[in-house]
């Protein structure tokens, strides 16, 4: 039966969700704020509801989103990533209003969203953990607790917001003085960002690989994993390039990590799609980090190598279907790489290029190429949202083939208007350490020279530059 499903998000992920909804034969309902007036997700959806002027506040407004669902008769809501995706109150509001929340139940979100609770669950299930504290006690007692932890386990440590996620609210602490100074700041920041000032400490695993596992579970508790991803190429804890499967040479270790991920999901009574994140240190020890209770930006690489449509599966499971495949059905074929093409100037500290108009948008195509974007020629990038323009995902039979395909696609991408991260990626993927799979989360710090590139100019563009000047000056100033 044709159903209406509301997409409580914007940007590329809104489009991604709408595509899956429409492919299933359902109708997609979009929501939007005023700055997104011209956004493609409104045009693509079957219906759209204006939430308010925002910015951001209306996408985060649970009441308005629930109201929009009721008004349009949507039976389910997909939250995408970010905004309300990992907000247990939102999942709860859906449940209370008889709307299907496409994701895990609110109590699971609640438990896993609280890092300290999550650690406790995992500890009980025997999942390896980075040494850490539970939420620090308020005030001076908490500081004393933190100092004691650090004296036992040594610096550096990570100070994290208990309710944080997506790399936000994390800071590195190198000594006691800094620890004492930063705890109040982190508390204030966590309060502002997540409405909860609880923080905790974790020993810092130096230069780890960030390896994560896509898991998916139906309501009967059948839980399978869809293989690993390597998201080590990060800038300030924000992922830039994601790869599936991981390039760890020891397949037995990868299998063990994936099986551990399934155990962890089961321990958390997980339902629907989620991601179990691990850190892998240089001695190949791995530690549980967290479970993300949402569809990830980088889910595309897993889809490419497994052939499984994660969003479609999410919707079907949420609507009550059982998993249509078992672990043995999941085969990883080849490699996939996703780069986030952001409207940012990598040479200016990745400053967002919001407010600029995309005067030309020409994307690559061909075999093994996937694009999840929402920009179009003439689109003005709102300044109030994130700077992701399009995710370019390529798939290849071998690692080298995949990198070659990515290079070709990046070279063929034409985006005029905002500066993008494309020239930077072109430098990264030609780096011998990247090509050799020899990288971890410190890659950008140790390869900062990759930012020293010149604007990609071909002989044709150079000559055209002179033609432009002859045109502008009404004569050739270099020939008079």
């Amino acid at each position, binding site marked *: 039966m044709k159903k209406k499903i509301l997409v409580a998000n914007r940007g590329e992920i809104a489009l991604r969700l709408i595509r899956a909804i429409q492919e299933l034969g359902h109708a997609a309902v979009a929501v939007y704020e005023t700055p997104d007036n011209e956004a493609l997700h409104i045009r693509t959806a079957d219906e759209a509801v204006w939430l308010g002027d925002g910015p951001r506040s209306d996408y985060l407004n649970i009441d308005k989103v629930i109201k929009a669902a009721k008004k349009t008769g949507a039976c389910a809501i997909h939250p995408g990533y970010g905004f309300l995706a990992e907000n247990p109150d939102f999942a709860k509001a859906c449940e209370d209003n008889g709307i299907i929340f496409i994701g895990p139940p609110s109590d699971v979100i609640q438990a896993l969203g609280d890092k300290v609770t999550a650690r406790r669950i995992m500890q009980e299930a025997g999942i390896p953990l980075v040494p850490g504290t539970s939420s620090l006690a308020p005030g001076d007692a908490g500081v004393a607790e933190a100092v004691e932890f650090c004296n036992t386990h040594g610096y550096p440590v990570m100070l994290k917001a208990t309710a944080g996620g997506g790399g936000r609210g994390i800071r590195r602490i190198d000594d006691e003085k800094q620890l004492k100074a930063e705890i109040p700041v982190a508390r204030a920041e966590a309060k502002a960002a997540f409405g909860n000032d609880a923080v905790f400490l974790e020993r810092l695993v130096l230069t780890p690989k960030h390896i994560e596992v896509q898991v998916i579970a139906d309501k009967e508790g059948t839980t399978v994993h869809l293989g690993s991803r390597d998201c080590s190429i990060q800038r300030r804890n924000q992922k830039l390039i994601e790869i599936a499967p991981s390039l760890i040479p020891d397949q037995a270790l990868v299998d063990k990590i994936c099986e551990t991920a399934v155990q962890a999901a089961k321990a958390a009574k997980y339902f629907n799609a989620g991601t179990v994140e691990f850190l892998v240190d240089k001695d190949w020890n791995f530690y549980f980090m967290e479970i993300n209770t949402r569809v990830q930006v980088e889910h595309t690489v897993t889809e490419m190598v497994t052939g499984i449509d994660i969003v479609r599966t999410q919707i079907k499971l949420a609507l009550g279907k059982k998993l249509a495949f078992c672990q043995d059905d999941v085969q990883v074929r080849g490699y996939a790489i996703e780069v986030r093409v952001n409207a940012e100037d990598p040479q200016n500290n990745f400053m967002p290029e919001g407010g600029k108009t995309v005067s*030309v948008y020409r994307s690559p195509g061909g075999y093994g190429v996937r694009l999840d974007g929402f920009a179009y020629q003439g689109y003005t990038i709102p300044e109030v949202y994130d700077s992701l323009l399009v995710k370019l995902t390529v798939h290849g039979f071998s690692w080298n083939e995949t990198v070659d395909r990515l290079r070709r696609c990046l070279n063929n991408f034409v985006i005029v208007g905002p500066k993008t991260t494309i020239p930077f990626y072109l430098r990264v993927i030609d780096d011998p350490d990247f090509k050799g799979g020899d990288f971890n989360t410190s890659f950008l710090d140790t390869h900062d020279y990759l930012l020293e590139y010149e604007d990609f100019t071909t002989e*044709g563009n150079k*000559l055209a530059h002179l*033609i432009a000047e*002859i*045109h*502008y000056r009404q*004569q050739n100033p*270099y020939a008079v």
Partner: protein
Amino acid sequence: MERIVHGMSPGEAIETLRKADGYYVTNTARDLSQSDYKNRILLHTDLLAAPAREAAGFFSLEITGGASIHVDMLRKQVDPFLKLELLRERMPKTMFQTLCRGINLFGYRPYPQNVIRMVVSEYAKYVDVWRVFDFLNHVPNMVAVFEEVQKAGKILEPAVCFSTGPEHTDDFYVKKVGEILDVTGREIVLCIKNHGGLGTPKRIGDLVSAILQKYPDLVIHYHGHNTDGNDVGRITAAVQAGARIVDASDHAFSGFYGPPSILTAVNTLTEYGYKAIGLSEEAVIETSEALRNERQYYEYFESQFKGFDPTVQIHKLPGGAAGSSFEQATKGGFLDKMPTILHDELPKVQKELGNYWSVTPGSQILWTTAVANVQAGDRYSTPSGDLKNLLLGKYGPFPFYQPADWIYEKIFGPNWKETLEKEGGMDEIADMDIEQERRDLAEKLGYEPTEQQLVNYLQHPNDAVAFFKFEEKFGRVYVLPPAIFLRRGGFKLGEMLKFRDHEGKEHVVEVGPMQSDESGTAHVYLNVDHSERRYEFEPEVSESAGGAAKAVQLSKKEIEELAAAGDYRAPFGANVCEVSVKVGDEVKAGDQLLVLEAMKMQTPIKSEVDGKVEKVAVKVGDAVKAGGELVEVNS
């Protein structure tokens, strides 16, 4: 009946010329470009003509040298070496010829010996025939070049500059040829260099006869300009008298101040029974067919003053200087004074300054002096630095007589004899530290320069660096046809421009809209190879808004008064080619503050007071207008 081709040894080529039953033709494409098109004929056009010119069977193609190496980099944005390489690819047989100003090489003033030798040996890899001259016919000024050309195994063609007047007798020139032969030996081609197109056919015929009477086996190459419309007559007389090579150019581009057309000369000589050896008239015609459509794009660079100028016999301005003199008069607002300048003052100045040969850089000295004399009213009251150097003998000795004492006194003051004694004569120019120059260039470029880049840098440091940077930014632009490179008034919206780059890739550029934003920045949109590109340009600072090129209305007297007070203003519109002081320097009266260059002439600006430099308003390369601020010295 043998064609002379690239790769023949000088001995073989000269022997062939000596035995020739007829004459050979040099296509003087470079001189035509320099005389009638301000040196702007692009490599693109020469490449277009290359196959037909190759088939034409010339003795040589004169395609480099003179001012062209400088202009190649400064105005055509082409590497003078790459030009020769590309032409050689398309013209494997034709010998390439250059014009070298002896000690002044391809520039305007003397270079050190080690630079001369390096430049010549590097260019000799590409150039088969070396015409070498000195505007004072002072043989020692040419010796270093002679030696390097002979060392490189290339054909040496020393030139005697020709002019007219009571001193310019056959005897004088025959002796001059003897002086040259004493240095070079007999295995040379001798050029009679008639850059003004002076004298009658009879005069030229007599001169050739007189030289051949003394040196019967000497191969003479006659070079003339058609300013008075009669060079075909002189060519005919020269060949009749025994000259073996003559200069002429492609008729599709012939103008008024360069060499005459090849076919006219050849047809005339055929009737007299002289055969152009190896020459294909069909190919000469084909060359002009290939070129004819291109001429329209160079119209802007042709002289606005059309028509032959038989009065060249009076003012003697060489080649393009005759045409451009009128333009300078128009720009300078003294067009009404041209009859006086050209027909009274210039001949007078020539006589007064020793009746030497009016050719670079001597012709510029004569012209600027004549203009200054007429403009100032008080003759020789505003001498240029180069005139002073001429009078002091820095270029070489006067060929016939020294200018009168009163001129020296006027220019150097009552103690002129002392000055002449102390400062007179050619300076020993110290060798340059070439390795230091190489390091300097490497620092300016940010990479290790090639030998060729260094050679061009040594001659024209600022312009060579500007060109290398231009090429980094804009690529190899010689591929753009004149219809694009020299376009004026912009392109039409939607116009499609097609060209093939240096590597051979075809490009298509479609012209899109142009918009300016609030800040005045212009955005030019082009569709380049089917991809949209946007190029930003900042508007040029308008003159009223200030800037280095600010025009200030000051009389000559006011400028002088300001200078006496330590505020130095540009006495005329010029480019700053050297700044010798910086803020805070202590200077004494007579110390050089900076050097201005206008119309190839350098003029040092010297402090008139003792004091401290308070302000330097310009930097090297700036254009200043008359009255513009230069330097302030606080006394």
